[in-house]
């Protein structure tokens, strides 16, 4: 057990591989965020408000911060 933890902690990756790993993990994260935003997953507050630029910003914000919005939605209902 301890050996495998040590092995895991000593595992080396290049910066390029870290970037690639982040990109691979980002794909499902962003897809969930887009679905969450599209179906208006936040029934309490109208989190996508405003017009023009501020509307675009809140859409992007909703896509990126869906886990936070999910927690706040669950807590408030």
């Amino acid at each position: 057990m301890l050996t495998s933890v040590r092995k895991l902690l000593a595992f080396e990756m290049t910066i390029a591989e870290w970037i690639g790993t982040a990109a691979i993990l980002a794909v499902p994260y962003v897809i969930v965020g887009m679905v969450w935003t599209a179906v208006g997953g936040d029934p309490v507050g109208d989190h996508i408000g405003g017009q023009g630029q501020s509307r675009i910003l809140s859409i992007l914000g909703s896509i990126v911060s869906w886990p936070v919005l999910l927690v706040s939605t669950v807590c408030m209902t």
Partner: protein
Amino acid sequence: MTATDFRITIHRRTARWDTEPVTAADALDFWSFAAGAANVIMQLSRPGVGYGVVESKVDSGNLLKHPWKRARTTFQYIAVAVLGTSEDRAAFREAVNTAHRHVKSGPDSPVRYNAFDRDLQMWVAACLFVGLEDTYQLLRGQMTAEQSEQFYRSAWTLGTTLQVGEDQWPPTRAEFDEYWAQACGRIAMDDRVRDYLLDLLNLRMINPVLGLPFRPLLKFLTVGFLAPVFRDAMGVQWSDFRQSLFERLFQLVAFANRFLPVFIRQGGSYVLLADVRRRVRRQRALV
């Protein structure tokens, strides 16, 4: 015949990023298996190997009858030879020996062969090494002379896992080139072996719904990985345009591959190795 007839020539390839020590284990990125069919063709171009495979009575290992099983056992052999421990290799050797005992020429065979022939095994191991070296350099750039030597030395288990002795491998990478040029002089292919290999290339052995869409790509990759001497033996065509497409494709693949972490690039080989160990523990058949 010159050196360029025996090995593929690449004019444009990805740059080398480092001069750190390398081993054949670095070459097991899954893209390398794009050269798999080409390697089968190279191996079977030697009549003793070609007829040994085409006439083999071991149906369970027949590429055309059990393609998925044959793919698993072949890739497992490479994973065990390159990544495995000496216990893994001993277990796999024993299993392969059992199948190889049935592979010897009969009275009607056009050529004499025996699967335990160490020269034939050396040829197959040399083909595997050439395949790994070609794909590795397409993905990671040309090795320095020192790296080539390290890579070559670490690949000897491709042969020594079976009956090839360390003394059979030419001692240096430069001497391997001499062996290879001389061994390529013994390439000969007749219709029987060629038809067998064309069936493989046309994916006749798998479901056509699955096979048809991949046929053009497999042909392109396979002929691209064949040196001129093997292309001629197979009677397949290649052009400068296709060569440049092939090189561009691998420049792109090499770039993307740099960003993939090792557990994605090589995960498949480790899964196959774990499967070998599980089979050994449960005393199930390896091949």
